[in-house]
C-alpha cells in the first residue's frame, strides 16, 4: 500500500528517522526486543506484549479518531480477505512461534546484540519477502482475493459512530489491565 505522496519527500527523512528511533527505543525499553518476553507471551505467562499493544491501541485509537473528527488526519485501513489476511496471518504466526521475533522486534533485538535475530530474523524475513515476491503473481490471481471484505473498518461495517466502539473497547481493555495485574502476568 502506498501512502500520501508526502511520505516520499526529502523532508520526511527527519520524521521517519526520528519516529523510527523513538519506536525502537520504546520497543527495547518495553522489553519486547527480548525473545523470552515475546515467547513468554505466546506461552501465556508474560503478558508484556499484550499490555504494550493494547495500551498503544487505546491511546492511538482515541487520539487518531479525535484528530480525524477535526479533519486533521485520514485513515489508512488495509485491504482484507480470507485468502490474504487469514492465510497470511496464520503463516506469520507459525513463523513467529519458531523465530520468536516479529519484523520490528527482530530489528530491535539485532540492535541489542541478538545474533539469532540478525541471522534468522532479518536474514530469514528478507528471504521470506523474496520468496513471496516470486509467489505473488500466482497468489494474487488465485488466493489473495478469496472471501474479500476490503479495507472496511468496524464503524463502517456496523454502521455506527466510531465512539460507540472506541469507548466500550477502551473500558474493556483497561478492565483487562486490572485483571492481568491481579493474576500477576
Amino acid at each position, binding site marked *: 500500500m502506498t501512502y500520501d505522496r508526502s511520505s516520499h519527500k526529502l523532508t520526511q527523512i527527519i520524521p521517519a528517522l526520528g519516529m523510527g528511533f523513538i519506536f525502537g527505543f520504546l520497543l527495547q525499553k518495553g522489553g519486547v526486543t527480548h525473545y523470552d518476553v515475546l515467547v513468554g507471551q505466546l506461552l501465556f505467562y508474560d503478558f508484556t506484549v499484550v499490555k504494550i499493544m493494547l495500551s498503544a491501541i487505546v491511546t492511538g485509537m482515541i487520539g487518531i479518531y479525535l484528530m480525524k473528527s477535526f479533519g486533521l488526519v485520514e485513515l489508512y*485501513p488495509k485491504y482484507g480477505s480470507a485468502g490474504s489476511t487469514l492465510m497470511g496471518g496464520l503463516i506469520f504466526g507459525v513463523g513467529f512461534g519458531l523465530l520468536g521475533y516479529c519484523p520490528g522486534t527482530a530489528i530491535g533485538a539485532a540492535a541489542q546484540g541478538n545474533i539469532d535475530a540478525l541471522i534468522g530474523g532479518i536474514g530469514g524475513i528478507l528471504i521470506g519477502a523474496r520468496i513471496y*515476491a516470486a509467489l505473488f503473481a500466482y497468489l494474487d490471481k488465485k488466493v489473495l482475493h478469496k472471501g474479500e471484505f476490503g479495507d472496511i473498518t468496524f464503524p463502517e461495517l456496523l454502521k455506527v459512530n466510531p465512539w460507540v466502539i472506541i469507548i466500550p473497547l477502551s473500558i474493556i481493555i483497561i478492565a483487562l489491565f486490572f485483571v492481568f495485574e491481579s493474576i500477576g502476568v
Partner: protein
Amino acid sequence: MSFFTLERWSPYITGIGIGVLSWFAFLLSRRPLGVSTAFVRACGLIEMHIRKTKVSKNPYYQKFPPVIEWELIFIAGLLFGSFAAALLSGTFRFEMVPSLWASCFGTNNILRMTVAICGGILVGIGARWAGGCTSGHGISGTLQLAVSSWISVIAFFVGGAITANLLFRIFVP
C-alpha cells in the same frame, strides 16, 4: 535522566508512547507506522545490486519498487533507537541463543539458527501475504479499527501460540 537508563519501562507507559507516536505518524507523515514493507524494499535493493539488473519485471516489485523510502528510513531509526536504549541501560550483549530457548533445546547454535531462519522465512512470507505485520496490522491497523487488522492480529497470535506451545510444551526433548 535516570529514567532513560532503566532496563525496563512499564508496558503501559511504553504502549502509550507508541500510541502517541502513531498520532505523529498520521499528522506529520500522513501514514501509519509499519515495518514489513521495508523488508520488501531492502530485498529488492539487495537483489538489484547482486544481479545488476532491473528487478522491475516482477509484479510484486512493481507494486513495491526497490527504492529507499519512508519505511526503510524508519527501520534504520528503529535499529539506532533500540541500540541506544540498550546502551543506556547497559543491556547490549552479543547472544547467539536466547536463554528460554537454551533452557529447553540447549545452546547448539546451528540448531537455533536453523529454526530461527525457518521461522524468519515464514514471518516474511506471512507478513507480506497478510499485507502487514504486528506493527502495521497489529498496532496501526487495530487502532484504526480496521477489520483486516483485527483478524490479522488474532491469526498472528493463534498461529504463534499453537506453534510455541507445541514447541515448548509438547515437542520438548
